[in-house]
């Protein structure tokens, strides 16, 4: 039984190593992807896209475009009836858009 367990541990070790390599390469690819000029120019959604999502159709939708490292804070206001979102940026102004209905 010990021999079988040791053999399986060897297989799992190889599987984990392969996963680590794939995670690393995928993270790198994603980072490069977001840095390509073309992707930056074409990486957008339209208001229609947001309205096409069924769970957002009959909702008020606010879109927030914030600089990197902007802090989003939600205090736990259990039972107080007012729910808050606090946004604080240190790298530039935050843009907030109200998605139009149509």
């Amino acid at each position, binding site marked *: 039984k010990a021999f079988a367990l040791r053999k399986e541990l060897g297989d799992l070790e190889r599987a984990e190593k392969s996963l680590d390599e794939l995670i690393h390469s995928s993270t790198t690819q994603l980072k490069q992807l977001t840095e390509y000029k073309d992707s930056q120019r074409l990486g957008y959604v339209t208001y229609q896209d947001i309205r096409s999502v069924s769970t957002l159709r009959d909702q008020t939708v606010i879109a927030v475009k914030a600089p990197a490292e*902007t802090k989003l804070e*939600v205090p736990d206001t*259990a*039972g107080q*009836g007012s729910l808050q979102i606090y946004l604080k*940026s240190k*790298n530039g102004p935050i843009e907030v858009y109200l998605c139009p209905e149509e």
Partner: protein
Amino acid sequence: RSRMLVSIGESFGLSNRFQKINQMVNSSDRSFKRTLDLGSAPKQKRL
């Protein structure tokens, strides 16, 4: 008061990073509506 903090503004963060916040907001809202139902609306605190 406890609070939840998330850093935004970066591409492709961890998945479901707002799940806990959404759950907390949902339960806060429910507990408030329950107190309303019980008729004793708590004094609203203003920031």
